[in-house]
Every structure is written in structure tokens, then in C-alpha cells.
């Protein structure tokens, strides 16, 4: 089937098998391997992308054909003009990642959260990322990373120091 999907601002017109999952479409047809695959049951969230600006979607739960006509943002689309997105900066500053495998999905989930709720508290952050598993960090620094990004987006300044303290 022929589909047209906008990924990170660029149009991709491709022929796909109807059963192709969006995750594999992004990884193999578009060539964006930052979106990972980690389970067979839509449990782990490493494949999370953002659809139409503010919806976090596990891209293994959708067929590529269902994304026809939609806009997708992946981890590769976050940094702009060589500058990291505040979430990426937050994960780096707060040691919010170790092996890096869950990181893209985790950041995209957080991206959708901050679009909908720019100033989440800790329980809200933990609730939002509860569909994304991480085996390395114990989540604590991920929560800090998202809090830093939230502050940075609200008042781009001394957010980093504020979260550390």
C-alpha cells in the first residue's frame, strides 16, 4: 500500500506491506534507527514516537498504514540547528541514561507529556513514563531530567542548577 507520512518535517512516500509496523517502517524504510524495538507485547516503550505533535505512541502498536497522512516526530527530530532539545540536555545533565536503549522512547514520551502539561510534578512525571521500562537507571534520574527540561522550557536559564539542588 502506498502511504505518505511526514517524519520530522520531511515527507516520505513509500509502498509498504499492510502488516508493516510503524516501528519497522521508521527503522527500515525511513532509516531512522533511534526508534528501538524491545518486546513483543507493547510493554516496554522503547519504540515510542510522537504523533501529530503531542501524542506519545508506541510505534509497535500501529501499522505504518495507520500513520498515512500523519506527522511523526522521532528522537532524531528533536535537536534543532545543532542545539539539543532541553529534554536531551536534561537526560545528559542528570545522568538519565546508561545503556541508552530506552532513552529515545523515554524522551519522546516526556516530550508529549510536556506538550500537554508543561509543569508536571513528580507523580505526574512518573505516571506519564510508566509505560516506558528502563532496566539501568531506576528512573530517579530520568524524573530529574524531565523536571529540568520542564523548568528550562518554562524559563530558559538556571534550570539545571535548580534541579541539582
Amino acid at each position: 500500500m502506498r502511504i505518505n507520512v511526514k517524519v520530522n518535517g520531511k515527507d516520505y512516500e513509500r509502498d509498504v506491506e499492510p502488516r508493516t509496523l510503524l516501528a519497522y517502517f521508521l527503522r527500515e524504510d525511513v532509516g531512522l534507527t533511534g526508534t528501538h524495538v524491545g518486546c513483543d507485547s507493547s510493554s516496554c516503550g522503547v519504540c515510542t514516537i510522537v504523533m501529530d505533535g503531542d501524542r506519545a505512541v508506541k510505534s509497535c502498536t500501529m501499522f505504518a498504514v495507520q500513520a498515512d497522512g500523519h506527522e511523526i516526530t522521532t528522537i532524531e527530530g528533536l535537536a534543532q540547528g545543532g542545539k539539543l532539545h532541553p529534554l536531551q540536555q536534561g537526560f545528559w545533565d542528570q545522568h538519565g541514561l546508561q545503556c541508552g536503549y530506552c532513552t529515545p522512547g523515554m524522551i519522546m514520551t516526556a516530550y508529549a507529556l510536556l506538550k500537554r502539561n508543561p509543569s508536571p510534578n513528580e507523580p505526574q512525571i512518573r505516571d506519564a513514563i510508566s509505560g516506558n521500562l528502563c532496566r539501568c537507571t531506576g528512573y530517579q534520574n530520568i524524573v530529574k531530567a524531565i523536571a529540568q527540561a520542564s523548568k528550562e522550557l518554562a524559563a530558559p536559564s538556571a534550570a539545571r542548577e535548580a534541579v541539582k539542588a
Partner: protein
Amino acid sequence: MSITTDGHHEKHALGIPMKRKEDPRFIEGRGRYVDDITLPNMLHMALVHSPYPHARIKNIDSSAALKVPGVLAVITGKDLEGAKLAWIPTFHGMDKQMVLAVGKVLYQYQEVAAVVATSREAAHDGAELVNVDYEPLDPVADPFTAKADKIILRDDRDNKTNHIYHWEVGDRAKTDAALAASEVKIKERMWFPRSHPAPLEPCGIVADMNKATGRLTLYITSQAPHAHRTVVSLVTGIPEDKIRLVSPDIGGGFGNKVPVYPGYVVAAAASVILGVPVKWIETRTENLTTTGFARDYHMDVEIGAGKDGKVKALKVSTIADHGAFDAAADPTKYPAGMFGICTGSYDFPTAFTDLDAYFTNKAPGGIAYRCSFRVTEASYAIERGMDLLANKLNMDPAELRKKNFIKKEQFPYKSPLGFVYDSGDYHATFEKALKKIGYDELRREQAEKRKRGELMGIGISTFTEVVGAGPSKYFDIMGIKMFDSAEVRIHPTGSGIIRTGTKAQGQGHETTWAQIVAEELGLDPQNFLVEEGDTDTAPYGLGTYASRSTPVAGAAVTLAARKIRDKARKIAAHLLEAAEADVEWKDYKFQVKGAPAKSVTMAQVAFAAYTNPAPGTEAGLEATYYYDPPNMTFPYGAYIAVVDIDKDTGGVKVRRFLAIDDCGTIINPMIVEGQVHGGLTEGFAIAFMQEIGYDKSGNALHTNFTEYLVPTALETPHWETDSTVTPSPHHPLGAKGVGESPNVGSPAAFVNAVMDALEPLGIRHIDMPLTREKVWRAIRDAEANTAKV
């Protein structure tokens, strides 16, 4: 051209929370994991699995699979027999394991056939259509049934028994006598259930045989690339120089990526035969049902003590469930790993431990899941045992521990089971923990709550680990000594490259190795590239698992840098026009003794090494070091958990958890804290959620992430961490390793806390995982018993 001082670094690089150098690629989605690799003409492979735990294979019919468009080949065990690849040796060489089943299947989900196709989808479609005719056999689903030898699982072995081996250490007669003479005794059967590391990236391989060059390149999820290259060479007969293993970014390992799995072997064999690349990426179900599990020890723990609480003797007898093959990843001379650490942090005059391992119809493994070879089981046994003893003595478990700790002045301490502990100050670390958590206040609060019938518990674990395998005299895997190595090269302009035989899977070596070299040489850590995992370029090493990277490879990095400093001193003397003996390394540069104004930096020396080498010295500035540790290192910790239990639901809320770790010298406190957070979360998972279970017929019960429960951000507690620093006397930096301590030490703290809460109900012990249902049932049963009385 003048000498530049670029790269000179006059600050401490060790002990600072430097942000990780590896992170930029991960946060931008530019990491490269095995499944991200696509090669021209690459084929895909999928595996066919047995639905039966124990069955004879009568026939395999591939005809329908071969009709699927894109399917090129179906490979069975019989095909592999021709290539002598149907069986491969297990890691410690005491057994062999099937690659694809021949004759019989021995566990549910065992690999029976492989389908190679032009796409992943076609390969999986084909695998669905391979028709295998089985004759089901009675299964052996637990080691106690196995012990009876009524059904013999392994008809390929000469010994017609399910018993694999007996192992023991210590003085049995003395221990039995001391137990018999003890005034107070406890004895408890504890099962540390089967668990699984479940890294979020499943295992996988892209095998690429280039028939023109004769070289086989394997991109593989490997925690031990060099060891795996040697195994591939030994098993296949392909010369080792014709094999290149590349372990790219690894999405978590935790021991799961140490063994060699059938999927790797078949994909490599298929590539060798077909001459094109073949990719195999595991599904989550395959990961949980077929790859290296951990634990599964049934332990009888006995402690004898005086009325005053002084311990007299420890005995632990274990029945181990090894599954279908003895594929436990332990050093050759240690079939039960480091289980002998079971005397823990306590000064036992005598001890004895023995273990019998059995085959069952379950997946093989017995890997060190975030643990230095069975240390987790041992720590759990002793830390639970100490709490049971405190309970029997009616003594505070903190008091009992303080009474029995090995004292600071007893180090180096020889344990009754043969380890020589390097260093520790158990009392100081524990006191810090008690103070920090407000132990006395918590006990007062608990007493109040008990009066009201509320269930609150405080659990302690003051464990000692043994890591950093290991001294070549004792430690080898398949004969290869367990040293590790580092190569450090300094470029003319003062930057450089560090390569080691280890392979990080999230531990942050790209940062910590750079910090070590920067500290030793006065160069900027940002200017060092760290490269691991490519056997063509990295020096030979045994890999990253069992908390061995910092104790072994970290020492190698340090000593390679010091070799460079020794050579640099000669060049510095030449530049300073001074005698070498008059040149000292001070404040991160070379100075003439007594004339500190006359100095050169390492960056200046590096430039001179290539542009103006000292007469009689070789040009260049690089060194390689193979480090053979003189002893293991013994990190330890004091952990305290506080829980509240809802009587009506059995739900356990971990209110607080404090972990004080002592891992010796700290290279990067941010990374250490991150490791502790992660390890505690896995310990929490093991204590409360994770289990690889089987029913009585040997059917796997936890085959995906909806059944095998990994904690999310919602249930994971908030972790409080701190440290004390007792350097290792024999490690060149004093470092001991930390990645596994929190996973080793925390399960007992959680379980002790829950049992402490349930103590007023007369509940002694519940095996993990302490699910809501299990706790609820225990409370209901206890209440029913009370009502009867």
C-alpha cells in the same frame, strides 16, 4: 612549529561527577545497536521452538515453510551434525549443549530449527510452518524430582543420572560439631527463585562471511567479545585471525549477554555456508524463555550461636536447578561460583557449604545476573539467616550484626571458606546508615504501630561482595586466565585513545577510563576516545560482567598510563636538560626537583615523543598492560529498607530505602550513584515482582513483559544513597567495583523488612517474589491459625 600545551589538565579528573562522554549519541538516537546494522544482501533468520518441555522429535517437515516466498532454507539439528555444530561446549567445560535439538527436546521453547529468508517477515512466516512431529515424554520440572532419577533427561551422557555435580568447601565435621554444641540454632529452607536479567535490547547477531577474504565478521550482543571469538574458533576450526567480533552499543546486559546462544551459532553457520550476511534478532519471548536465567537455588541455611548472639558456625546446603544443560557461566574451578562468600560480613569461627546441581526440563543458564557468580544467592542466605537468628534470640538485628562483624583491624581477613577479604570497616559504614535513617526513631515508631495492629517493618542487609575475577592462579574460563587489558596511546597533540578488553553495556567506561588516564597523565579527559568491543583493535580481555571491569581493566588502564608516565619522564628529562632521577611528577607535570619553575607538561612531552624523542628512546608514547589481579576485591554495603504493609490487600509499600555503599576509591560519583539506583531497582524487582516460573508440567509461565513483571517508574521506590570509602589495598587506584552490590545486597533488605513487619503474626519466612497475593495469603493463614488456637 612550536610546542603547544593543548590538552594539559591540571585538575583532579578522578572522583568528579563528569558528565558521560558516550551520552550525545544516545540522546540523539544515534547509538548503534546490533539490530541497527544492515548489510548488502543481508538475509534474516527466525527460530522454531518446541511447545513441549520434554519430547522425542519424530520428524521435521520443512516443505510448507520452504514454499513461503522468500524462504531460502530450513536448518535442523541434523544439518548441523554434518558440520559438527549440533552441540557446543558449555562455558566451564563440564557439559555440552544442543544448538538445534537432535533426538529430544529438553525444555519448552528449545530451538528446534532455523528458517533463513530474504526478510524478517518471511523468516517468521516460514518458522510458523515448520511442522515438527513430537512424542511427548514425562517432564522433570524440579530438582527434587530430578534427584530421584526415575526419568533420565540426558541420554547423551555416559552417566545415567540427573545429578550434575557435588561441590563443597569448608570443614564439615567441625561445622556439624559446632552447630550441635550451639546454644541457639536456626535452620530455614530458602528458595532464591529463577530470575532473568531481561535487558531491554534482546540478543542478536549479524553474521557476515566474506568468502573473498575468508573472514567471518560477527556483529553481536556480547559482553565478552574476545572470549567469544576464541570459542568460535575452537568450535568451528576457523583460524582466530579470520574471525572478527564486533560488539557495538549494547542495550543492557546484566549477565544475559555472556553465554553463546543457538541463534548466534546458526546465523554464523548459515552465513559461512551461504556467503552472505545473516541477521538474527531475538524476540522478547525467546529472550525470557531460552537465554541465560539466574539463581534457582534451594538453600538450607543453618546458623549456630551462643546465647549472647556470638555466631559459632554456618552451614548452607543447596540444591541447584540448572535446567537442561549445565550452561552456568562460572569460572572453571568454581562450579558454584563465589558462593563461598556466604559467611558474609561476619566472623564465623567455622563454616561449611555444599551444593548438588541437577538437570531439569527447563531452559539452561545459571548466569551471573548483575552478580559476581552466585554472590547474590550467598548474600541472601546469610542476611536472611542473620535476621532469623536475631528473631530467635529476641535481639535487635542491628545489635546482632554489630556483635558479629569482622573488625576493621582483622583485615586482611581469611574467611573460613577460603577468601581473603581485602579491606573494610563494617562498623563505621553501618553506624552511618543507622544514623542517617534514624534507626532508633523508626523502631520507636514501629513499636507504637504494633500496639495499634499496624504492620511496619525495618529490614537490614549488611552484605559483603567478592568481585574482580580474578587472579590467574585460580580463575579461568575454558582455560583462558581471567586477566584484563588496556592499551593507551597518546597522540602528538596530547589527545589519545584508550582501548580495553572489557565491553560496557551502560556502565560508562568511555567516561571513567578517560578520567583515569587524565588523572594519571595530567591530560584533559575530554580529549580521550575510549574504544571497546572490536576484537581487531582492542587488546585481549575477558569482558564485562561480575563487576570485573573497574577492578581488573580499570587497573590495567591505570598501569598502562603509568608505563607511559615512566617513558615520558625520560623525554621530560631530555627536554628539561636534567638527569632523569632529578625529574619528578608533581601537580600533574614533570618538574626538576627543587626548581619547580623548570617544568614540562605531558602534552609537551607527547609532542616531543614524536618530534624530538630523547636520544636512545623509541619514538611514540603508548603502552599496553595486561593486569593479573593479586586478589579479588570485596565491596560491601549497609542497606536499610522501611516498609508498610496493608493487611487487607497484602500490598507492600517501600517507604524508605537507604543504601550506603563502600566500593573503595570512587572514579565518578555520578556514575556510581546511577549504578546503585539501577541495581536497587533490579533487587526490588526480584524481591517483589520478577520470576521465571514453570508449572508442574514444565510449561513456562513468564514468557513476555505482561507476565514477567519489570518495575515501572510508578512502583519503583525513591532511593537514598551515600558512601564510605575504604580503598582496596591491592588495586592501583584502591577501587573495588560497584555495579552489582545493590542487586546483591538489596533483596535480603526488602525481605527482612517484610518479615519484620509480619513478625507479630508469627510469620517466619516467605520465598520471593513477595507478591501482593503471597503476602495476603500468609497474613490470612496466620490469622486463621491464631483463630484456631
